């Protein structure tokens, strides 16, 4: 069976500094993978490389997304092909309404996929329904995109976008950071609702806490730009119990 995402020997640098030093990873449709690791290990870099941020330069390796060469695609083409990145720090765009942005994004993606634009009524119905499930109030939908949103509101809003854009692969970059336990649960439920046999997830997190709510199929531990160990959900608990320090030390020895 073809992998949804196939990363091989990926090397990347930022400002000339090597960050990823040979990452290999394969996600099959329907799987949820988690990447854990200490700060500075390259987790977020991997997320930005997947999404095609220009500040991250790939120096070696390959990424296949389904049948396509992901690295040859522009960021928007990756989105059209079904890659979604829920960002750790969603940006603010003053003057652009939250719902308006969402509809522009949805229509851009639909157009690229050969679908008709969604009608205003249908869009509103879907957006409101999903917002309600995520505990996003009507007022937040009308505000400017991410402007003045709390950390938790921004993260919920990312999940709202994900739900409407229906990606094939969703990358969640530290979606749990800055969330209280209730918000964490709501966000995790949002993700779990979207799990399906066709869709894959790559959940990047520093803490095991999130993985109690989004139970992964596979856990990878990333240290210093490489994946050092891969296992099942029990690996996350092991990390939590023993800490990265011991882990890094043992691996480095």
């Amino acid at each position: 069976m073809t992998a949804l995402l196939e990363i091989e020997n990926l090397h990347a640098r930022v400002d000339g500094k090597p960050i990823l030093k040979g990452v290999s990873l394969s996600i099959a449709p329907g799987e949820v993978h988690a990447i854990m690791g200490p700060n500075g290990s390259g987790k977020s870099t991997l997320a930005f490389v997947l999404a095609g941020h220009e500040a991250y330069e790939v120096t070696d390796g390959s990424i296949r997304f389904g049948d396509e060469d992901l690295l040859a695609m522009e960021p928007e083409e990756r989105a059209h092909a079904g890659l979604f990145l829920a960002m750790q720090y969603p940006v603010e765009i003053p003057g652009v309404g939250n719902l308006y942005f969402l509809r522009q994004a949805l229509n851009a993606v639909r157009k690229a996929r050969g679908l008709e634009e969604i009608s205003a009524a249908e869009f509103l119905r879907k957006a409101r329904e999903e917002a309600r499930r995520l505990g996003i109030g009507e007022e937040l939908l009308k505000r400017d995109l991410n402007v003045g949103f709390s950390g938790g509101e921004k993260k919920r809003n990312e999940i709202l976008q994900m739900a409407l854009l229906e990606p094939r692969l969703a990358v969640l970059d530290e979606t749990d950071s800055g969330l209280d336990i209730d918000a964490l649960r709501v966000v995790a439920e949002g993700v779990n609702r979207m799990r399906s046999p066709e869709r894959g997830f790559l959940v990047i997190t520093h803490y095991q806490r999130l993985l109690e709510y989004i139970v992964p199929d596979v856990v990878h531990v990333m240290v210093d730009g490489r994946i050092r160990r891969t296992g099942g959900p029990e690996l996350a608990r092991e990390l939590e119990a023993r800490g990265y320090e011991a882990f890094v030390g043992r691996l480095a020895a």
Partner: protein
Amino acid sequence: MATAIETVREVTASEYKYGFTTPVEEERFPPGLNEDVVRRLSERKGEPAWLTEWRLAAFRRWQQMEMPDWQKVKFPPIDFQAISYFAAPKQKVRPKSLDEIDPEIRRTYDKLGIPIREQEILAGVAVDYVFDSVSVATTFKKKLEELGIIFCSISEAVREHPELVRKYLGSVVPPGDNFFAALNSAVFSDGSFVYVPKGVRCPMELSTYFRINAAGTGQFERTLIIADEGSYVSYLEGCTAPMRDEHQLHAAVVELIALDDAEIKYSTVQNWYPGDKEGRGGIYNFVTKRGLCRGRRSKISWTQVETGSAITWKYPSCILQGDDSVGEFYSVAVTNHHQQADTGTKMIHIGKRTRSRIVSKGIAAGRSDNTYRGLVRVLKSAEGARNHTQCDSLLIGEHCGAHTIPYIEVANRSARCEHEATTSKISEDQLFYCRQRGISEEDAVALIVNGFCREVMNELPMEFAVEAKKLLGISLEGSVG
């Protein structure tokens, strides 16, 4: 780090979608300007003696005047003797009905998306079509006449309503006001005239669509709008021109007069040909626009979206003479490639408790320069005057400039003036965020810029807001790469 907005992409001038020329037989004066030309122009238009004299007086004033040099914009000297001061499509008489209009001219406006007809898309908007030096059609005249509203070309107004024209022409912008106003007063060829009688609320948007077609000409139109006591009118102005290597001069004068309790809303979407990416060709848009809030509680509101022209140099202003009168100026000025803009407003507070509001959004991309220059003057008589000014600049790329030059002169202690200014850049992270959600880079720039301008766009009448939004996107195509 290679930044997304560092390199300005090569763009072809073909992005200007209105750059075609209409093959229409024209009548035109040979280039050159002297008293004889002014006389001939006036005669050709069948004007009364007082107007011929008025033009000649203006011409003599103009001859004594020097081209101003305080502006930030730069351009080579203009040879006023090389311009033809009258060009008109040949037609024996002005068509009596819309069906008699030259099919070529009709096709021109069709291509521009503003077909000459009184139906469908333009229902609810009456349009005066000015083609080079003359007005070629005005729609919905009958309907407006029933309400006593006069909406016609200024040439027709001179013939049909001389008392109104004579009373108000030059009353807000006197012929000797400035170099270009004097030139316009001498050679203005056509333009629009509006009179809204007492207590009438004009039920539709009035609009003039200016089109420069002929080469080697300038366009010198004159617009005069009078809102009598308690009346209301919303007026829209749109402009385009063919692509040419030469610079063409557009030196218009617009005068607005609002009497007691009257309100005039004047909106402009200016998309004159901006020149190519090397800065060749394009319109010099040197315009004097001024509104006089003569009556108490009167209100004049300017909204402009300026995306075109090689150089935009104008300051739509309000003289707040009546007590409690209100002046507003909402502006979006976009410059790309080698375009230059030096634009802003003047708010002159004379009456008591007069209020003014200025919202200016300048967007600079490519190698362009974008200047806001504004004057708020509160005279001694203007007890309790208020002004709020907000100037925001958005930079795209590394080679453009944004400048804010406010002048505030206050002679009354009870007045309150506030000035806020910000400068920002479109960040790479904003662009990346939009693209990650599937929105193309160019659409993302348009989206972010439209967000930046929203306060101003909200002031535009519906009919224009959609067009203006698209225009912003088109003007900035290729500004990132």
